[in-house]
């Protein structure tokens, strides 16, 4: 019985293999690993990923590898494959810091400050994509999303102009900036609606007038009168044929988009009271926003976790353990958010720098050791930030049809001793540790 069912499985898989092999021509690479964290369902153990021309075509425990495929058999080494890490707000790649006031006309990608080896410095820590936020307070600009890839000039941006960054603080100037921005945007929208109404009205009146004139001319013609000739250039100018919207000021555009729900705001906060004041501004509003909390190691954020989670907002936390204010009592804010039901959690480097990035996994491992779920933790540094920037089709999961972008780690992702062995973007190996280290030695 068992044998027959086994045979059946074998034959069916053979048949499937034959059907597949016809498709899988061209450059095919197979990765065989002890563990694959797909982020698309459960993790797979002892499984294979088959990549053809930069796209994942097969994934699973039983995958037949075509004869001409290049095979990377890493079974038995303890290697783990995950999607690349994604940074949701890396303003250390930026040059222009804008403090105070509404500078929402600026776009992060326009003032990048990248060294020649910037991709390597991110690859070696497993990063495949970064969202860059303009540094500064007030409304310092709009965020951009970069794929980590070498380029001669400006790096490849996936999105130039994404979220509007706002810096929230417990004071009048920060609050007024946001209130005024919203007020100006609403006025601009109202102004546009009114202009369109006016245009429609004048257009209607113009058409009626023309119709009357036409009738009068016809009547005059019927009476045998000569039609009046109008000199060229003396013709009356009617309203334009198509509606031309009144212009919106550069600094208002991003806020207008936000009010129209065409743009998300990434709001940066430091404390629990910032959240209360933000909620006061957003009281009856329904605009989209996600919150980035950046705090010191002491935090009172636990005071507002319930309220934040109830709002359903995406939360971006620094990956670090905190102390309760004025005590040495440790608190795992990330784990508390998850326990309170937060489903959209991002963990970011605790300090916004390459050094912070280097320590990211080690700090997340501390959070895991002190109560954060490991699967949620991995999601919080890969898929969730990709979702936050709307690039989940580019990176974030290892699934059939997705671009073959992933990291092969030397072991458990959250073991601080684990390193990036290889980073592959769109099927192409961008980083190889052995090669990198031999170059360093040279």
């Amino acid at each position: 019985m068992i044998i027959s069912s086994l045979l059946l499985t074998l034959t069916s898989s053979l048949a499937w293999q034959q059907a597949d092999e016809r498709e899988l021509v061209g450059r095919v690479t197979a990765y065989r690993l002890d563990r694959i964290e797909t982020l698309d369902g459960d993790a797979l153990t002892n499984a294979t990923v088959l990549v053809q021309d930069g796209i994942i075509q097969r994934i699973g425990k039983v995958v037949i590898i075509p004869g001409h495929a290049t095979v990377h058999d890493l079974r038995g080494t303890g290697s783990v494959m995950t999607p690349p890490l994604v940074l949701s707000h890396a303003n250390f790649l930026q040059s222009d810091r804008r403090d105070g006031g509404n500078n929402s006309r600026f776009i992060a990608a326009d003032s990048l400050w990248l060294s020649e080896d910037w991709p390597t410095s991110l690859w070696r820590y497993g990063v495949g994509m970064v969202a860059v936020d303009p540094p500064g307070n007030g409304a310092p600009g709009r965020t951009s999303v970069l794929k980590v890839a070498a380029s001669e000039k400006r790096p490849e941006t996936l999105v130039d102009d994404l979220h509007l960054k706002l810096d929230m603080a417990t004071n009048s100037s920060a609050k007024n900036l946001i209130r005024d921005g919203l007020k100006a945007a609403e006025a601009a929208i109202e102004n546009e609606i009114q202009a369109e109404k006016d245009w429609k009205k004048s257009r209607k009146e113009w058409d009626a007038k023309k119709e009357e004139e036409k009738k009068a001319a016809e009547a005059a013609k019927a009476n045998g009168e000569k039609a009046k000739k109008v000199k060229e250039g003396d013709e009356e100018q009617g309203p334009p044929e198509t509606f031309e919207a009144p212009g919106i000021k550069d600094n208002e555009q991003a806020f207008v988009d936000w009010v129209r729900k065409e743009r998300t705001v990434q709001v940066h906060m430091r404390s629990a009271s910032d959240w209360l004041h933000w909620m006061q501004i957003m009281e009856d509003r329904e605009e989209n926003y996600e919150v980035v909390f950046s705090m010191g190691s002491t935090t009172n954020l636990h005071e507002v976790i319930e309220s934040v989670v109830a709002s359903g907002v995406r939360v971006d936390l620094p990956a670090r353990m905190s102390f309760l204010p004025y005590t040495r009592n440790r608190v795992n804010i990330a784990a508390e958010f998850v326990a309170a039901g937060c489903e959209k959690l991002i963990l970011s480097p605790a300090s916004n720098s390459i050094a912070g990035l280097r320590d990211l996994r080690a700090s997340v491992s501390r959070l895991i050791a002190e109560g954060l779920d490991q699967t949620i933790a991995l999601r919080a540094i890969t898929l969730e930030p990709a979702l936050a920037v709307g690039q989940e089709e580019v990176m974030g999961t290892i699934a059939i049809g997705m671009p073959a972008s992933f990291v092969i780690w030397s072991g458990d992702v959250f073991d601080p001793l684990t390193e990036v062995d290889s980073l592959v973007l769109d099927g192409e190996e961008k980083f190889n540790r052995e090669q990198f280290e031999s170059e360093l030695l040279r």
Partner: protein
Amino acid sequence: MKTILQLILVSVLCVNVNAQDQDSSYLAIVGGDIHTVTDGVIMKGVVLCKDSRILKVGKRVRIPEGAEIINAEGMQVYPGLIAIDASGIVSGRGVAVADSYDPYALNIDLALAGGITTVQTGGMVANLKHGTIDNVLVGPTEWVNLNYSSTSSAGRRRVRDEFSKVRDFMRLHRSWELTSSMGEDAGDEPEAKGVKPEYLSLLKGEATARLSANSLKDLLATCELLEEYPMQSVIFGGQEAWACAGRLGRVNARLVITPRNKKWASDDLNRPSGWTIENAKTLWEHGVKFAILPGENSISLMGLAGRDLMTLPMEAAFAIRGGLQQDAALRAITIDAAEMLGIEHRLGSIEVGKDANIIVCDGDLFHYRSFVQWAVVDGKMMYDKQQSSYFAHIRPRAEEVIDEIEEETIIDAPEVVDNP
């Protein structure tokens, strides 16, 4: 003692009224000695708060079902203390105070632990609340700073000149008003040209002058000004006020004093000088109203018995040591301070209809050993000694389970009601 509490609770629980407003929240402080400030002390009474106001005060008060109950048996209940010029607790100026209000700040918790529920800062009066930024502002204080220091006679003359202009204008305007009210042609209404509007509002009685004077010389100069131009005033300092208390009383001056600010008498002067522990007492005897402020207008964390805002009652206790009656000392940090800020209709005493800012102490407010056990602001519990980490470990409150008391009383109910 417990039976009395039970009696109260029983009378409450047995006659539970069902027609309660379901959306409202009730909070009852039961069994403590209530220092109303304006109407004596109610021994073992009940303060019932509804939403943000005081609904009932008395010995027998029905408590609605579902009310939050604070068992204050054996404790002392006071109105929340009011700190004038407490810029070190909440920052900002004017309405910006609400925008820069951090309801999780250490200073707010510690000020509540020190019994302060209301502060004046940046021309604004604010309630101290933990965890919420709703309705924190009580209102603005219409104070005008007057620099009338005796060290600059030219500056003093300038101030008097300004007031003289204002008075001339007011006379002119009054005669114009009278003439036109009699139906005569009085011409155009006189314009307030060259008249400082804030000085005008002072002489009209719409604002309060804020002055500083410590030495007798400065205080007398200030009295002169107030005699010539009567207006509402608050004088900060008043170290040598005891030496001219009668005169301060005649000009209706109000003072903000720091009883522990010391200055030795000067041998060079042929007049009374220096500080005295009896300053507050002397002022009181001469009918001069005053508020009390510690040496620092912030919280310094220099120790429990420091000279910062956490020890406001200790500053007042020092005045009591100098002979001031205890109820007068209590007034100085509650209703009299409220009056100077123009909020005495809302705060400063435990009266029906006033804002429910109440503190419960485990002993006499002016005893060094007493702790604030609970602070209620706007009808909501904002500080509970046992729930916050600062002082919970010091003489922890005996575990008081309200549910148990209620159960007991419910069981005993018929018996007790039959024997009133």
